[in-house]
């Protein structure tokens, strides 16, 4: 089986079949992330299409030295999903969503009983859930809520320096908590 990096190289050379494989390999990984951020299924499908269209168009710019294909597409998916949320917010002419709304979006306690919410909880119950609450909160507000450090400081009423420190400590702890499943590692090399 071709590695993902090989697939991307083939995509850069115009290989549509490689793209189809690449899509099959990662669409089910990034779709839940996009859905979690944008919430609406129709929006999530749009963003998903946009993200993979970009991978097709920019495959020749992929640089393995910067990260694995997985990190490449996850970062793109997160960025585009946040862009979508912000543009929806702008269309509603409220430039910044009320902070408690964002907080509610990323707080597991607000989740209902649907299967979808249970999936969300699945994420929370993973590595993130093992972070101290203060660190988990700032990372979720930033990564899933799209808030900037200043907005987070306003939202949780803490000094900016505290927000930075919590994000840094949280990320460091996440890094040690997460161990890559060996079965998947081969795909990314």
């Amino acid at each position, binding site marked *: 089986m071709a590695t993902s990096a090989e697939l991307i190289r083939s995509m850069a050379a115009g290989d549509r079949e490689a793209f189809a494989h690449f899509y099959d390999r990662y669409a089910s990984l990034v779709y839940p992330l996009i859905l979690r951020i944008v919430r609406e299924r129709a929006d999530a499908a749009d963003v998903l299409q946009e993200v993979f269209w970009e991978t097709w168009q920019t495959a020749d710019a992929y640089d393995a030295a910067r990260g694995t294909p997985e990190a490449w597409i996850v*970062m793109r998916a997160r960025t585009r999903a946040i862009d979508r949320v912000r543009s929806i917010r702008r269309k509603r002419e409220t430039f910044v969503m009320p902070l408690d709304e964002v907080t509610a979006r990323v707080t597991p306690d607000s989740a209902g009983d649907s299967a979808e919410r249970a999936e969300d909880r699945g994420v929370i119950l993973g590595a993130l859930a093992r972070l101290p609450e203060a660190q988990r909160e700032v990372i979720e507000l930033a*990564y899933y809520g799209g808030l900037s450090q200043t907005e987070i400081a306003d939202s949780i009423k803490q000094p900016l320096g505290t927000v930075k420190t919590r994000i840094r400590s949280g*990320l460091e702890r996440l890094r040690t908590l*997460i161990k890559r499943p060996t079965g998947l590692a081969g795909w990314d090399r």
Partner: protein
Amino acid sequence: MTHDESFDALAAVYAVGALDGEDRLRFEAHLGEGCATCETALRESGETLAALAREAPRAIPPAHVKEALLRRIAESTAPTPRARPAPSRLRWLAGAAAAVIVVSALTAGYVSARYEARLGQMAREAAAVRERLRQDQASLNEQLALYRDVVDLLRDPASRIVSLQGQGPAPQAAARVVWNDRTGGHIFVNNLEPAPSGKAYELWTIGEGAPRPAGLVAIQPSGTGSQRIAPVPGSTSVKVFAMTLEPAEGSPDPTGPMVLASK
């Protein structure tokens, strides 16, 4: 700018997409100079966050997305220069050189590409603000010139202020003229309906002889208007100011109803 500890926190905040303001400018400048420590930190954070996504249960996306993508790709330009003929040695060298350039350009452009869209939007907003400022400034300059002119007039002991009262069809209207027989003056009107279409308000100065036309005065929807009045050539002294409703192009002699007059 060499790496110091403060950049570790900035790199973490940048990795979760939350760096803003001065911090972002500072960090991106630092990255632009090529900091291996920060590049490693960003790469590791990227992998960590990707692993977070991998922890979540997978979900099958709607099938139409893949179909749409494959259709879009098939419709987009046929695989253009990508399917190249076998390159000669020279072309291979040129290609390799180009690749080196592309890679370094990518490194340098990494940061800018990531925020390209946002920068574009900011540029558009900035242009809009500049245009608004330009218009505001033009209108302020106009007002300033008017005020300066009036202040100069008022400094002159020969100037006087004349009140005009509303007449017949406009009893609530009022106006003041700051007047100097030698240099002319200004009229300020309040509480007057704008002239109906096809009509205009015309000002008259009355001295010894017949009323002389002193210009048309535009009235805004707010009911106010102001106008510079030229001095009356060779005249002794203006005794009365009056305003009438006339045809839009004005009239050499008053013909319409009088709306304002001084005593």
